[in-house]
C-alpha cells in the first residue's frame, strides 16, 4: 500500500487510490471495524478446543462465569454463560488445567476479544467436582480444620439439641422419633435451611450462625437425607465447612447415605452414617441410665450397712464398758443414718464438715490418720464443708 502525502489536492485524506478493496471508501466507523474484527475472530478458527489453566474465575448474573485461560506465555479472556455452567455444578478451582470448547469472538461494545465457552473438561482425568472437593479439602486441612485434635467430645447428657436441616422431608421426623424414644425430655430445635440447590450454601451458613445465637444449646446436628451426589454439593462447599467449624458447641454431621462422605462430615466433631444414627449418638438411652442409677443406689445402701456391721463387730470385741459407751454413740448415729435412709432431707449435706472438721485424703482416696502416711512432697487433699483444699506434705 502506498499513501499519498497528507493534505494533497485530491481531498480524500486516506484514499490511497491504489486499488485496495476499500479504496472507494472513506474511513471506517469504529462499529464497522469492530464488526469486521468480530467476523474475523469468529471465522478464523471457528469453535475449537483449547487447553490451559483457568484463572480469576468470577461468577455474575446468577451463574455466568468470567475467567481467563492461560498457558506459560499467553492468556485469553473467556465467558461461559449460565445455561452452560449449570451443567458443571461446581466451578473449577483456581489454576485447574482444562480443555475448553470455545468460539473466539469480539465484544464490540468493549473492544475485547473473548472466548465464548460451551464446555469445560478437566485434563486430570477426574471430574471437576472431585477436583473441587480435593482442593477445598486441602484448604481446610491447611487451616487445621480437619485436625483430629480439634474434635470435641459430645456432652453425655444434652438438654437441648439444635438440628440444622430441611423443614420438609423426613430427616427431622426421623431424628425426633429416635430422640423421643431414647430420652423424651431432650429438647430439639429445628433450625431450617435449604439443603440443596442454589441457595443451600447461603442458607446453611446462616442457619449454623443462628445456632450460635440460641441460648442453652448443648450440641448441633447438621443433617440431610440421602440423594444423588450432586444434591450433597452444598456440604462440600468451603463456606459451609467453615461455618460448621465455627459452631462453639460440639457438632455431628449426618449427610446423605452411609457411603457418602462430605467435607462437612470431616469438619464436624463426629460423623453419623444417617440422621437417625446421629440422634442415637447424641441422645443417651434413658433406660440404661436408670438401670445404672438403680445399681448405684443399691450399692450405696449396702455400702453403708456393711460399714455399720463392721463397726458392730468391732464393738463386740471391746470390753463391755467401752462397748456400752460406744454403743450409745453408735445408736445415736444409726438414728441419723435411718433418718437419711428413709429419705429424710432435712439434714444438710456434709453435716460433719460444716461444723468445721476436715477430711484429709491421699490422692488415691485413703483417709490420712497418721502423719507417716504422707511422705514429704506428696500431694493430698483436705475436704472441708465448702470444697476441697489441695495440699502437699512438708
Amino acid at each position: 500500500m502506498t499513501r499519498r502525502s497528507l493534505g494533497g489536492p485530491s481531498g480524500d485524506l486516506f484514499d490511497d487510490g491504489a486499488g485496495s478493496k476499500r479504496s472507494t471508501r472513506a474511513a471506517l466507523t469504529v462499529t464497522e471495524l469492530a464488526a469486521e474484527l468480530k467476523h474475523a475472530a469468529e471465522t478464523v478458527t471457528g469453535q475449537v478446543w483449547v487447553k490451559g489453566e483457568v484463572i480469576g474465575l468470577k461468577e455474575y448474573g446468577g451463574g455466568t462465569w468470567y475467567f481467563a485461560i492461560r498457558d506459560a506465555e499467553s492468556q485469553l479472556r473467556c465467558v461461559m454463560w449460565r445455561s452452560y455452567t449449570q451443567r458443571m455444578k461446581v466451578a473449577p478451582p483456581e489454576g485447574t488445567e482444562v480443555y475448553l470448547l470455545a468460539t473466539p469472538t469480539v465484544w464490540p461494545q468493549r473492544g475485547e476479544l473473548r472466548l465464548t465457552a460451551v464446555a469445560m473438561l478437566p485434563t486430570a482425568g477426574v471430574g471437576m467436582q472431585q477436583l473441587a472437593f480435593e482442593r477445598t479439602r486441602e484448604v481446610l486441612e491447611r487451616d487445621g480444620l480437619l485436625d483430629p485434635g480439634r474434635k470435641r467430645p459430645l456432652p453425655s447428657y444434652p438438654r437441648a439439641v439444635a438440628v440444622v436441616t430441611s423443614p420438609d422431608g423426613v430427616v427431622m421426623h426421623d431424628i425426633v422419633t429416635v430422640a423421643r424414644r431414647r430420652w423424651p425430655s431432650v429438647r430439639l430445635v429445628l433450625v431450617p435451611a435449604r439443603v440443596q440447590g442454589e441457595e443451600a450454601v447461603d442458607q446453611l451458613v446462616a442457619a449454623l450462625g443462628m445456632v450460635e445465637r440460641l441460648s442453652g444449646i448443648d450440641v448441633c446436628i447438621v443433617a440431610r437425607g440421602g440423594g444423588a451426589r450432586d444434591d450433597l454439593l452444598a456440604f462440600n462447599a468451603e463456606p459451609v465447612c467453615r461455618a460448621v467449624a465455627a459452631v462453639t458447641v460440639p457438632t455431628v454431621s449426618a449427610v446423605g447415605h452411609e457411603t457418602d462422605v462430605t467435607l462437612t462430615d470431616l469438619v464436624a466433631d463426629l460423623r453419623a452414617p444417617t440422621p437417625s444414627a446421629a440422634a442415637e449418638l447424641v441422645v443417651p438411652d434413658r433406660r440404661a441410665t436408670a438401670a445404672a442409677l438403680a445399681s448405684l443406689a443399691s450399692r450405696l445402701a449396702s455400702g453403708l450397712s456393711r460399714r455399720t456391721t463392721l463397726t458392730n463387730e468391732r464393738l463386740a470385741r471391746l470390753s463391755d464398758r467401752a462397748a456400752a459407751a460406744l454403743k450409745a454413740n453408735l445408736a445415736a448415729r444409726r438414728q441419723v443414718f435411718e433418718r437419711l435412709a428413709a429419705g429424710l432431707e432435712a439434714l444438710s449435706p456434709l453435716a460433719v464438715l460444716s461444723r468445721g472438721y476436715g477430711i484429709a485424703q491421699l490422692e488415691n482416696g485413703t483417709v490420712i490418720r497418721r502423719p507417716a502416711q504422707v511422705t514429704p512432697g506428696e500431694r493430698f487433699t483436705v475436704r472441708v464443708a465448702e470444697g476441697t483444699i489441695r495440699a502437699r506434705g512438708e
Partner: protein
Amino acid sequence: MTGPDALTGNLRRLEEIVRMLERDDLDLDQALALFEEGVGRLRAAKERLTEAEARVARVVEDAAGVLSLTDLDD
C-alpha cells in the same frame, strides 16, 4: 448443676462414693457424710430421668434478625 454434664458429674461422684463406702478405711462419720451426699446426688440424677417430654421447636427469624421459637407440629 443443670448443664449437660451435671448428670455425668453426679454419676461419676456416686461411683466414687460407693467405692469409698465399699472399702474399710472410713470411720462412721465419714461414711455417713458420704452416704448423705450420695442420697442427694441420686435424687438430683433421678430428677433428670423423670423430666417431662419436651416439645420440638422451630427457629423463626423475623425481618429485624431477631430469633424466636415456635412449636413444631411433627
